[in-house]
């Protein structure tokens, strides 16, 4: 038993913190009408990919850094804490899908490009936000060369900026994975008015778009990728809880009412103490899930679902408390409180609700008991 971060982990976290503290600036978003493109979405990317973050868990054989998921959350904790806008989420998702579904040749072709700044996205959910593996939202048909895809997907993170998109599509009654070039004729990408303006989320429509099938596609690809995406969202959420806690604590020490700092009132103190407890709890679950995924532990899926359900739900609570503690100023567009409030809510829906992850938890336990 060793529930402590190594010096290497702490070092990685510190250097990531230094980078985001210097480079992330959310102030352009604090004017109505702004979107990710105003807040360094592209500028940050060149540096992030240079740091190797998008390939951090990609095996060295494919040009990645071959590091663990614990290393990954050191970084995601920092991008999540600062809401750093960049296509990191989409690229991680696309790269994991490639890692799980691609053949050796395909992985060797695509994954090494990550270090040159390749941007990817993964299109899984349909327009209802369902990840149902039997829905024929996109259908693949054999063509002269490769396949043609037809249909629509939504809630595709970072699709508009991606160089290529991995798309799940129906072929012979099962969902396989295909890769589509962003410039391919017939591909239409629409940026959605996603409420979390620190993230780019899109709908894609495919009208007979040329696609290459990922040759190792199978029904375990999505659960494998999903567990990793749970980890990413949970790590963002846990770090976000800490961020809004710290902001609210600072504010509670400064803001005076009735002759005392508002942090002297128990109604405020107790809310903050509760969030402090939740913050510890979420961080512990995230680290456990990262360890379990790194070790391929038999409870890895369980750990990932627990972390995502808890952290995202508690993030919603904490960001709401945060606005309450700030008072009316916290309800303005010019403060960043709402950015966290919105990130929290969007994180709790993007891959299905916390309740749906809890359903996964129960199913895994029922399966273990049987």
């Amino acid at each position, binding site marked *: *038993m060793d*529930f402590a971060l190594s010096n290497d982990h702490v070092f990685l976290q510190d250097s990531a913190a230094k980078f985001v503290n210097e480079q992330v600036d959310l102030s352009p978003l604090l004017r109505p009408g702004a979107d990710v493109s105003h807040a360094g979405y592209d500028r940050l990317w060149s540096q992030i990919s240079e740091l190797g973050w998008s390939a951090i868990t990609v095996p060295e054989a494919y040009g990645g850094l071959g590091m663990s998921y614990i290393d990954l959350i050191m970084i995601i904790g920092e991008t999540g804490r600062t809401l750093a806008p960049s296509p990191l989420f989409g690229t991680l998702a696309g790269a994991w899908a490639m890692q799980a579904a691609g053949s050796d040749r395909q992985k060797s072709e695509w994954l090494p490009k990550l270090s040159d700044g390749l941007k990817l996205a993964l299109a899984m959910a349909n327009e209802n936000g369902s990840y149902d593996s039997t829905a024929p939202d996109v259908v693949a048909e054999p063509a002269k060369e490769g396949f043609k895809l037809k249909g629509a997907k939504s809630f595709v993170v970072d699709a508009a900026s991606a160089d290529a998109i991995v798309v799940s599509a129906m072929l012979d009654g099962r969902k396989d994975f295909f890769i589509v070039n962003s410039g391919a004729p017939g591909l239409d990408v629409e940026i959605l008015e996603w409420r979390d303006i620190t993230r780019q989320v899109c709908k894609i429509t495919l009208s007979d778009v040329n696609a290459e099938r990922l040759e190792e596609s199978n029904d375990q690809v999505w659960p494998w990728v999903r567990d990793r995406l749970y980890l990413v969202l949970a790590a963002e959420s846990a770090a976000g809880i800490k961020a809004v806690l710290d902001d609210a604590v600072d504010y509670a020490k400064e803001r005076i009412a009735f002759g005392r*700092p508002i942090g002297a009132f128990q109604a405020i103190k107790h809310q903050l*103490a509760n969030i402090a407890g939740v913050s510890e709890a979420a961080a*512990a*679950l995230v680290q456990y899930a990262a360890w379990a995924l790194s070790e391929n532990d038999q409870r890895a899926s369980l750990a990932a679902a627990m972390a995502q359900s808890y952290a995202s739900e508690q993030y919603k609570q904490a960001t709401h408390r945060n606005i309450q503690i700030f008072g009316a100023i916290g309800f303005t567009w010019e403060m960043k409180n709402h950015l966290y409030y919105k990130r929290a809510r969007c994180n709790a829906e993007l891959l299905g609700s916390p309740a749906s992850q809890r*359903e996964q938890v129960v199913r895994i*336990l029922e399966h273990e008991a049987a």
Partner: protein
Amino acid sequence: MDFNLPGEDDPRRIKVQQWFENNPNPTYAQLAEQGWTAPNWPAPWGVGADAEMQWIIDQEILRTGLELPYTINAIGLNQCGQSLLTYGTEAQRKKFLPGALACEEIWCMLFSEPSGGSDLGALRTTARREGDHYIVNGHKIWTSAADHAAVGVLVARTDPEKPKHKGLSMFLIDMNSPGITVNPIVDMTGEKNEYNEVFLDNVKVPADALLGREGEGWKIAMEQLQTERVGMTKPGVVWGMGPTARDLMDGLIATGRISDPLIRDEAAKAYVEGEILRLLTYRNMTNRINGKPAGFEGSAGKMLSSPHGQRMADLAKRSQGVAGMIRDPDVLPLPDKKWGMFSDWDYAYWFCPANTLGVGTQEVLLNVVAERVLGLPRDPDPTAKLPFFETTKTTARAAE
């Protein structure tokens, strides 16, 4: 980072198992001879076990069907005994620890009084020095185990001229001393007596029963409460003891009640919370192995675990429907093992309102976390700086 616990083939475990094979049905006294009733204490009392070794020893004790020593003699082995290692004299250790470690002398904690428990610093029991004795007078209440305890850990006021927290001292008293009367109090479960009130009427306490120095009582008491809270972070239903959310989930699955949608989602929530407490316990273990002091984890852990236990007990009860409102009809199965006091959901359910009262109420704990961890302003206490005897006058006046 590594969340694996020592396995079955761990050489440390095999050694412990060998001893149990050679000594079937051991007494606690025999376990104490091995240093296994408080393994983390240094020799000769314990074996200076790190957190993993302690975990192994606990596991093996449970396997023999025995209750864990520190649930039988919680105050002696968990909360207070360790203070003797830091503050006690060698003579005190020799006098008090062997009986505690063998679980032959049960200890109790004489802190709370009728006039207040949260505001412990305002306690009124006095200990007046007379020659080589102190004379103790006062009234303690909510004292768990006082009816069968041999040793009482007493906080009393030795100097009423000093401000409330500064005039307190700690004593280890013989519960059979003349002048001590123990009256059981029936708690709301109506089950076997949990706590008592204790009258101290001119009790003669030898001067060498003072632990540490005069005036150190508050400091030592706070350390003891902190130690106690770390222990309570565990995922059991009441103060870390008894069945956990894993057991609840097993029971709900085994009985098919898990398919009730009104139970299902909440059971998952409780399960996740239980796993969090398990992880926080592991973090405590790691901190101890790495020699880091128990800080935030203790208070935060209890802050999370007390309401968790209440939610879990409520769910266990609700899953049984109206039948659960009859005494003792537990239908949810529990694994066959020695749980100590909390051996069924029914008792845990009717007991668990105490979760957020004992060892610091939830409100007081939230204050501790807000003030000590987050650095928020302290609650005002108009009595904190005054000589204690003046504060009793003010409160008396306020009450008029």
